[in-house]
């Protein structure tokens, strides 16, 4: 189901987390499965000095994002956005057809991150230099997400209520 390499990377991913004051962030979500990958890049003189990822998703989505973040480190943004699924597969080995969306997400996240960096810094590139079109939905980062502490608390309360009831049953 998963290649040995995929499992290894999934178990010990590198380059995860956020970058404070990132030059660009790409956030993409696969509509079908809900998997979400974010890539943060810190760019200086068009070189990606640092890249990290965050993923809410399955084994392949996590492993692919980890590979993506390490691949683009030290590369120019032009090189980075040219990476394709097959470059990630070279590292991961084979990936089942129904999990390929995870690899696509990783590539999309790179492209979205570079695009976000260029937009933020006002860099315009000729169309020829542009990467392939996104296969998944890009989401723009909202400053504060609309989760209220109240709603989370009520969920936890449910668990404590359940425990209490179980005790009473005794």
């Amino acid at each position, binding site marked *: 189901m998963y290649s040995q390499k995929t499992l290894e990377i999934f178990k010990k991913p590198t380059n995860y987390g956020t970058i404070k004051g990132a030059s660009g962030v790409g956030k993409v979500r696969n509509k079908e499965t809900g*998997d979400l990958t974010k890539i943060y890049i810190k760019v200086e003189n068009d070189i990606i000095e640092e890249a990290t990822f965050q993923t809410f998703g399955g084994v392949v989505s996590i492993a692919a994002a980890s590979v993506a973040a390490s691949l683009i480190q030290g590369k120019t943004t032009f090189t980075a956005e040219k990476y394709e699924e097959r470059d990630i597969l070279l590292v991961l080995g084979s990936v089942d057809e*129904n999990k390929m969306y995870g690899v696509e997400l990783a590539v999309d996240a790179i492209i979205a991150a570079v695009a976000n960096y260029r937009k933020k810094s006002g860099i315009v590139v000729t169309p020829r230099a542009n990467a392939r079109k996104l296969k998944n939905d890009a989401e723009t980062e909202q400053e504060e997400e609309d989760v209220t502490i109240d709603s989370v608390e009520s969920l*936890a309360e*449910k668990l404590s209520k359940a425990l209490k*009831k*179980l005790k009473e049953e005794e």
Partner: protein
Amino acid sequence: MAEKNVIQKKIYLDHGATTPLANEVYREMLDSYQEAYGNASSLHSFGRDASRLIETARERVAKAIHAKPNEIYFTSGGTESNNWAILGIARANKNKGNHIITSTIEHPSILEACKQLEKEGFVVTYIPVDQEGVIDYAELVKAISSKTILISIMAANNEVGTIQPLRAIAELAKAHKICFHTDAVQAIGALEIDVANMGIGAMSISAHKINGPKGVGVLYVKKGIEIQSFMLGGEQEKGLRAGTYNTQAIVGMGKAAELAVSKREENVKTLKNVKRYFLRKVNEVMSNVILNGHPTNRLPGNVNLSFEGVEGESLLMMLDMAGIAVSTGSACASGSAKASHVLLAMGMDEDLAKSSIRFTFGTDITPTEVDYVVEQLRVSVKKLRAISPIRIYKVKGVQ
């Protein structure tokens, strides 16, 4: 010694997907392989030996659910029983009406059969459920019309374990003279279901969920209920379900049903204790965990939890690497990474629905094993949350 070199005992917490074969069941099956290999439909003594075993199994199943032996039909499992009940009863009663009622959280073997009926011109109403997975009874009452010929509501849900108000539904159906079918595949080991007393028209059971073999099940059909045959080409099961009897599997089904009933009380008690201990431990060491399904009115061995910010499949694989087997949603659906249709029907947000893990315990688990599971859970969730882009606001398990 380094932990790595210790071979970890595997812990199976996926009894909702399937259960191991009970020793008693295995032994009876083994004996029957040697002693009753004849075709149960043959007239000679070899056939009669096999036939006798099948009739014993039929009696055992009948007794387990308070039915008559001639109301028990052997099938290839829960899926077939469900398909047969829905398609067979609807098609046979087409002259009386074309309306069927079921719920949004049924097993795919019910939902897909209903979709097939829709193609054939039947109208199906899917009753919604509340946040805890209990069907909306008022909606059910409202949905009934003079055209309704079948109501099918599962006894207990396979994913979240919520138990439905079977008696009330059965009574409602009876009052309207509508056949009531229930998928009791998950429930039969935990609940006493007296089909005669409750007035249930048809009920599906599967052996492999109650420590029996895979590939065998039962459809109970109350005498007088009209149902079309499902397999053609033989006189087996009164011509309704043709095909040479799978004697050994049927023997296993019978024994498993008998054991499920004789051990039910003890098993339920054990599982409730395991569940309580597990939940208490989870609460002690983890945060932002949500219990899905009904807090108490649920299958005793089922705990379905959402770990905020953590995707289910990833967590499943992390636990698998630690020798712990759990599932996300139902086993049949877990090839796809989609959020569970049951949790979505319960109104859960998609990310949280994708963050759910089902633990279905067996009675043989020890407290030490539960401790190990909780520790691995804690570590895995922490790891995956560190990777996750989903922002969570920390809330300690129990306040």
